[in-house]
């Protein structure tokens, strides 16, 4: 099933991101974000005051303080006052909110940004605070351990093995060799086990980064971009939180979101998957029915750079940028949130026929 055609077309017209780094301790979040905001606006020639709606994604828990997004807003330069909102989620969901805002006709352009600094704390520990606060979080099961449960379930089901996981990691990091923004580039040894069966090569780097996208509607998009990346469909779905009630070898929420976004017909040529762990790419490829002819993660994906809260928005930006450059005609972008792919978003982007 695909979503009904809409009478208003929305496109990604510009994308910018930081060079993602293990640490950026000399920079505040705002200082990390500012160059990205300037770059994405410069690409379209727009100024803050020209933007119809602004939406951002970030997490107070990464920043270590409440209302952390308020200072980023000061960096945007919200004067005169702007129409603006924020999701405490990956920026991909901020983009979804902005997309609905443009669909209502209340705005013709939107600025979407997100950022996260994982370096100041132990992100493995921080992410345990996402878990059930009464029964699970007090045990501090960390994100790598939970991902390892998922990887082992896949191995037990006969869907993969350790060499296949290593191949996923190697291919992503080799692709990242051509991505100047990636944190890890080129061949990476498989490494020692971090939490069995996951080795360091199966796990994402811990890093800091930011990303921004500009959306525009209809002819405005054509004015701002030579080849806009039209959002043909976008949908997201959530699953149960408890790992014990989910089949970790499958991702029904990704499949449903892809169906609703119209991802299966016609097929896509490119897929940017937000799979921070190698085993998750196996799950997503199956849910999205991606064949060997699809170029998966030409950017290197989250195994090469995983700035939390921005990594999903970056997938949409990378997919759109390939359409802007004429390297793709129809691309899928995926973002995830929560332990073991609990929540998933799928967007389908298309360029005009050439």
């Amino acid at each position, binding site marked *: 099933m695909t979503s009904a055609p809409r009478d*208003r077309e929305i496109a990604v017209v510009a994308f910018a991101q930081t060079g993602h780094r293990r640490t950026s301790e000399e920079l505040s979040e705002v200082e990390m974000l500012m160059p990205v905001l300037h770059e994405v606006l410069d690409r379209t020639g727009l100024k803050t005051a020209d933007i119809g709606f*602004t939406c951002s994604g970030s*997490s*107070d*828990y990464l920043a*270590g*303080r*409440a*209302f952390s*997004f*308020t*200072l980023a*807003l*000061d960096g945007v*330069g*919200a*004067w*005169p*006052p*702007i*129409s*603006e*909102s*924020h*999701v*405490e*989620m990956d920026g991909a*969901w901020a983009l*979804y*909110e902005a997309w*609905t*805002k443009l*669909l*209502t*006709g*209340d705005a013709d352009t939107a600025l979407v940004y997100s950022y996260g600094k994982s370096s100041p704390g132990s992100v493995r520990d*921080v*992410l345990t*605070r*996402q*878990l*059930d*606060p*009464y029964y699970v*979080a007090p045990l501090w099961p960390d994100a790598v351990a939970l991902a390892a449960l998922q990887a082992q379930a896949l191995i037990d089901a006969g869907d993969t093995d350790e060499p296949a996981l290593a191949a996923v990691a190697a291919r992503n990091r080799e692709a990242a060799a051509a991505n100047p923004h990636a944190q890890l580039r080129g061949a990476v040894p498989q490494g020692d086990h971090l939490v069995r069966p996951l080795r360091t090569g199966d796990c994402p780097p811990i890093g800091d980064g930011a990303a921004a996208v500009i959306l525009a509607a209809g002819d405005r998009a054509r004015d701002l971009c030579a080849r806009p990346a039209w959002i043909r469909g976008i*949908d*997201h*779905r*959530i*699953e*149960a*939180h408890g790992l014990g009630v989910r089949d970790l070898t499958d991702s*029904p*929420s990704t499949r*449903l979101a892809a169906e609703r976004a119209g991802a299966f017909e016609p097929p896509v040529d490119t897929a940017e998957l937000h799979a921070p762990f190698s085993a998750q790419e196996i799950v997503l490829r199956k849910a999205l029915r991606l064949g060997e002819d699809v170029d998966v993660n030409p950017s290197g994906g989250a195994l090469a750079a995983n700035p939390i809260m921005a990594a999903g928005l970056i997938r949409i930006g990378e997919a759109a940028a390939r359409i802007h450059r004429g390297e793709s005609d129809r691309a899928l972008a995926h973002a995830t*949130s*929560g*332990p073991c792919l*609990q*929540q998933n978003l799928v967007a389908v982007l298309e360029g005009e026929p050439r």
Partner: protein
Amino acid sequence: MSKEPVAVVGIGQTRHVAARRDVSLAGLVREAALRALRDAELTWADIDAVVIGKAPDFFEGVMMPELYLADALGAVGKPMLRVHTAGSVGGSTALVAANLVAARVHGTVLTLAFEKQSESNAMWGLSLPIPFQQPLLAGAGGFFAPHIRAYMRRSGAPETIGALVAYKDRRNALKNPYAHLHEHDITLDKVMASPMLWDPIRYSETCPSSDGACAMILTDRAGAARAPRPPAWMLGGAMRSEPTLFAGKDFVSPRAGQDCAADVYRQAGIGDPRREIDGAEIYVPFSWYEPMWLENLGFAGEGEGWKLTEAGVTELDGDLPVNMSGGVLSTNPIGASGMIRFAEAALQVRGQAGEHQVDGARRVLGHAYGGGSQFFSMWLVGDRPPDS
């Protein structure tokens, strides 16, 4: 292009109290959601998407709690969004949900906001030190007191105005079974005799810390036609933000608030809010913000807001009732407080507000603000669809 009209067909809130030790976070939000579903005579299966909001995650110590709450809110297999815009979040959350309907992305949406302040410590949650940034000056009252002083100096308002607001809101709360504070022995003298906390803000002029949740069911024209009780129709809705700190900011009457109200009135075709709006649920966490926001929202001229309060215009039986429910001064589960304003406005135009109902209320404003008076969200709801 045309937007789909948005109707409120279900409203539910918890009984707000200082500590709900009998329920988990999941139990708290589910209680409000089930009441909203019951009001709309719908089931979980009728809900296409869920949009939730709350103030910072540090208030309960759960990072991105929408993940954990997906099951409790019947969201499994559905889209779920989590909004966070500081104190305005309850209003912003409702507006994000409304946009899903207005854009025809979904037909029927559950929106909910909550805070369970007893799970943690809000003062701690707001006081994590960051180098080279100003601390929050011992709680929100410390931040807002100087701006109240500035208002008093600018407007020449008598010192008693704040106490009048608190006395009114606490009396209104006695008529609202869901309100946190039920001070049956309240008198104006007691308010004025309460200890000074942050000069000029007295103890009885401040909001409590509450546990609570508020939910609404928003739907399209077809959904409204099936509703068992009168819907409230969204006639206008807007958000505006401005920077926290900069030389040109007017903390007494921020431009973002003025612009936001003007946008809502434009959408709703309101030319004279004072005459055309029948009541307002305004985010007043410290009593003096009633006269300040009356001016900011265009109900009174600059420096004139306190005169409406003093003349009793904002009383429940006044010409422009304000905070008929008892307001934030009587109930403050922070993340939910904005949505409660929006929901109470909808209750009024549906004629469902019970003892605090304003007779004949046809157009009512719901208002929320947050941060250092830099985030605003508002909606105007009416008893008729927008095009009638």
